[in-house]
């Protein structure tokens, strides 16, 4: 229990560091937000008034903390290019991306775990060649390329959804919206499935060669018994860690795929905001995505502590 609390503490510390780095970096390059918002022909009085309104006359640390609290209060500043609060811009897009990421995660887990175990059982000969070839091919296909093919094939030809026209999750056509997200999620998932299968195959093979497997056989276990009672559980820890990284990479993949499929999620907003140099939005999105990643990592560590008693010992060597 102590080590779990420790891990949660570490998670918060990491979030603080990450958010501070992001805030500082963007505060450094973004110049004077008041000037940006009002344009170059603003009077000095207007500028001064705006600066006060935005809280720019306060010390840096105070501004940072206020901004950080904004993730809970919803006050994250004003977007330069959309002239509305960052929060109102982001909030509806988060659930779209989150939904797509979760679908993608489920697809990855559902396919790659059985496939990885199967690939480990048949790692020699022709089936080994085949699985290695497929894995490498899967990792070589960029999601935006499959995205183009899928959005044309399943979208324009089969009319299962309309690329570029996302109906919204709460609209009357929510089913179409989910289909739209599903195909995008699959495109994100493909390379990641290949990687997960590869990781799982080598993990399981590695575990099969450990001494405890020999012990288990010497007790009279059959293949199934060895696998289910021993190898599976021992393969779980690296798998959970890998799946947490997968969560992170799905977020990265969603940035590109949202663009291909025309999905109004935070990834697409991020790209637009980078192009427009809309720093308040970029800043907030980057930190939200990083939080997501840190949370996934923490969750993985907590789960692993449940699985492996050796990880419960806590850090002190």
């Amino acid at each position, binding site marked *: 229990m102590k080590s779990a609390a420790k891990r949660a503490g570490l998670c918060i510390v990491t979030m603080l560091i990450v958010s501070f780095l992001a805030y500082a970096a963007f505060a450094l390059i973004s110049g004077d937000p008041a000037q940006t918002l009002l344009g170059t022909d603003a009077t000095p009085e207007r500028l001064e008034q705006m600066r006060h309104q935005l809280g720019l006359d306060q010390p840096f640390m105070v501004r940072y903390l206020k901004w950080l609290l904004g993730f809970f209060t919803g006050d994250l500043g004003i977007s330069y290019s959309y002239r509305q609060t960052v929060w109102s811009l982001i909030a509806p897009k988060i659930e779209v991306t989150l939904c797509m990421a979760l679908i993608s995660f489920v697809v990855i887990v559902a396919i790659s775990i059985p496939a990885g175990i199967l690939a480990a059982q048949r790692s020699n000969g022709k089936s080994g060649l085949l699985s290695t070839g497929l894995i490498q091919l899967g990792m070589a296909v960029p999601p935006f390329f499959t995205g183009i093919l899928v959005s044309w094939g399943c979208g324009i030809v089969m009319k299962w959804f309309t690329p570029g026209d996302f109906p919204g999750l709460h609209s009357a056509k929510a089913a179409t919206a989910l289909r739209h997200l599903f195909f995008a999620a699959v495109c994100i998932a493909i390379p990641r499935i290949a990687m997960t299968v590869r990781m799982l195959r080598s993990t399981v093979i590695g575990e099969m060669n*450990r*001494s*405890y497997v*020999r*012990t*288990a*056989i*010497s*007790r*009279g*276990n*059959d293949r199934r*018994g060895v696998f289910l*009672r*021993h190898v599976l*559980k*021992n393969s779980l820890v690296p798998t959970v860690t890998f799946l947490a990284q997968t969560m992170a990479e799905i977020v990265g993949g969603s940035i590109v795929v949202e663009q291909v499929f025309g999905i109004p999620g935070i990834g697409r907003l991020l790209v637009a905001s980078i192009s427009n140099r809309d720093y308040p939005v970029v800043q907030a999105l980057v930190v939200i995505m990083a939080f997501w990643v840190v949370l996934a990592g923490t969750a993985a560590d907590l789960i692993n502590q449940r*699985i*492996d*008693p*050796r990880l419960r010992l806590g850090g002190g060597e």
Partner: protein
Amino acid sequence: MLEIRDLHVQFHNRDREAVAGISLTIRDGEILGLVGESGSGKTVTAMSIAGLLPRKQCDYQGDILLDGDDLLHAQRALLRQMHGKKIGVVFQDPMSAMDPLMKVGEQVAEVLRIHTDMDAAQRRAEAVRAMALVELQDPESLYDKYPHELSGGMQQRAMIASAIVIRPSLLLLDEPTTALDVTIQAQILELLKKLNREEHISMLFISHNLNVVRKLCARVAVMQRGLIVEEGETEKIFRHPQHPYTKHLIEAIPTRESARRVKGERRAKKAAEATAAAKAAQGAAPSASAASAETREEGGIR
């Protein structure tokens, strides 16, 4: 009880036969020692008996009969019946031989789970009994501990408990004390003697360490390059070794005098290293390179 007749094992990726035709008998209730240096084929022999040979990667012929049942050519399903039930195996390194994520007691009870239809409570009771038999303190609470919470000696005791929990006719011990401290080693040997005496379990004890074999086994077989070069009563062989290889092995056991000589040499070597290190350039700090010399002790002939 166990009879090996003209056993040959040839791994596909090796030129020489790992076991080149050996015959061996273990009588009811005895402890037979099998000695030889690494690569002599003693572990392969044990694996053949335990049915742990990777069958696809080697050719094998001969007979291994345990109470009349053929172990070498048996079907997998039949072998699984023998494993655990009629043959228990204890391996060299208890830490890696135990599943790190399974409770110690559950590992001890696993054999029961596979071979009997006892319910969980019965299995637990039996496992605790076996753990008490191998003189583990407080077996009831050890049952729910994980391997990493036990010392090396306790782990090996637990492994022995798991190997005997169902009372097999034969216990295979593959260098069971090599990874342990000398004092723990002695305790484990005492325990094995007691189990042999009181529980009447026959054992095949494999070791490269003649001293240990002398303490434990009434009879010993010496292996070299896949063949048994000498076999007989331990004391007789120690007093009057016939084969040159056996003589060589016995001479390699450090006597008090030779131990003193080795110690002296080591001291001289350390001194030489220290001066070398002192001469070495300022950047490179001397490290604990002498540590590797310390590990060769205790009559080993690895």
